[in-house]
């Protein structure tokens, strides 16, 4: 299969995802409302002294994003299960990894919207100044989200095979993304100017993780889809 037709298929699948999501907006709206609720809850549950906020905020941001992400991932393959659409997709003459990549891109898109709304709100609610290294902060968000979503999408495909999928998905995802969570929090903290050097290693960990967990799911996705 040529790269052009691969990208074509990716586009078609993405068009389908976006069409059906923005007609009902079930997933996005739940993710948004959930994360707004968490922002508000943290706001009054964690009453912080000024000098502590910066230490805690990165963790709070990433925990919120993690749970909002899992909420969305739970629904990622639901539409494919209705009417057994997944079989319809598998029958199509294309490499099956494209199905996985399209889902990953879609999930990243949803996360990007959630982040765009909630992350600024965190700074407002906690009355914390904008990070002094915005580029680094942005990089942490992008890389962290990518690593999270590529593993998350794969595991959500795996969990959707089971009736108890929504129960087991968080249990599968969280231990596997511990390195991502840790590195992303550290990079975020660094972008607040609160670390004293040596944080390049977290960027490297995210990159290595990103490579490993892009290659493995692509190799293994065919095995998930067997009927």
């Amino acid at each position: 299969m040529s790269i052009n037709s691969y990208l074509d298929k990716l586009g078609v699948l993405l068009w389908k995802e976006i069409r059906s999501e923005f007609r009902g907006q079930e997933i996005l709206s739940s993710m948004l409302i959930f994360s707004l609720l968490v922002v508000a809850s943290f706001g009054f549950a964690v009453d912080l002294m000024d000098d502590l906020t910066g230490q805690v905020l990165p963790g709070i941001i990433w925990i919120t994003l993690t749970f909002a992400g899992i909420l969305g991932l739970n629904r990622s393959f639901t539409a494919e299960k209705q009417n057994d659409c997944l079989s319809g997709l598998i029958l199509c003459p294309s490499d099956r990894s494209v199905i996985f990549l399209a889902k990953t891109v879609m999930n990243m898109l949803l996360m990007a919207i959630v982040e765009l709304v909630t992350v600024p709100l965190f700074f407002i609610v906690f009355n914390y100044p904008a990070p002094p290294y915005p580029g680094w902060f942005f990089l942490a968000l992008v890389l962290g989200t990518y690593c999270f979503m590529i593993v998350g999408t794969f595991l959500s495909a795996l969990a959707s095979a089971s009736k108890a999928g929504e129960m087991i998905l968080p249990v599968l995802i969280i231990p596997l993304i511990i390195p991502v969570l840790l590195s992303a929090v550290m990079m975020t903290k660094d972008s607040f100017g609160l670390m004293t050097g040596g944080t390049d290693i977290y960027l490297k960990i995210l990159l290595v993780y990103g490579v490993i967990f892009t290659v493995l799911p692509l190799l293994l996705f065919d095995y998930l889809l067997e009927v």
Partner: protein
Amino acid sequence: MEKNRFTGWLEKILAWSVFLSVLLALYLALVYAPTEKTMGDIQRIFYFHVASAWIGMLAFLVVFIASICYLFTRHDKWDIYAYTSAEIGVIFTTIVLLTGPIWAKPIWGTWWTWDPRLTTTLIMWFIYIAYGKIRTSLREEEKKARLAAVFGILAFADVPVVFFAIRWWRTMHPGALVTSSGIGLAAGMRPAFFGGLLAFSLLYCYFMLLSVRIERMRAEIRALKEEILN
């Protein structure tokens, strides 16, 4: 029948060697090994703690290898190996997670520290419990085996990344505590250390043999039930 008799013998020999080597390991660890000067008797837990950690790691490596073999060959036996090894691995990592804090409290003055080894073990424990959750949440045997194998491969790839991430995090973090690598092994302690390792390795093999047999019986019962129902 011939094969059954052979495994029956193997089982008996293994059972006896487990029994003897555990006795020996207990003697070596509790009596033979000298008392550590600064830590005192509590240090003796270390022989079982480290042996369990090694066996846990070995068990998860077996899950990884058996999972790959399963996906390539689709032979049920690899699935059984992967599953039983994961189960046993969880038991041994549970021992690590229990003995670690018992040792750490008097020595480091705290039950838990985010030591890279201990933390990686904890995450591994979570990961392989999740592996078990996948299996219990699925009905169809083939699907169960296939999805578990996929997760078994993914999970093991995660372990080294977790370890390095946490090691970096700890060394960067202010006030990092002493890591367990600080413990040197005096010559007199070596027999106890290797004795423990030998006993636990044999125990692992014995558990594997028994659980594999149980799983085979289960499969047989399932097949018989299906036959009756049809």
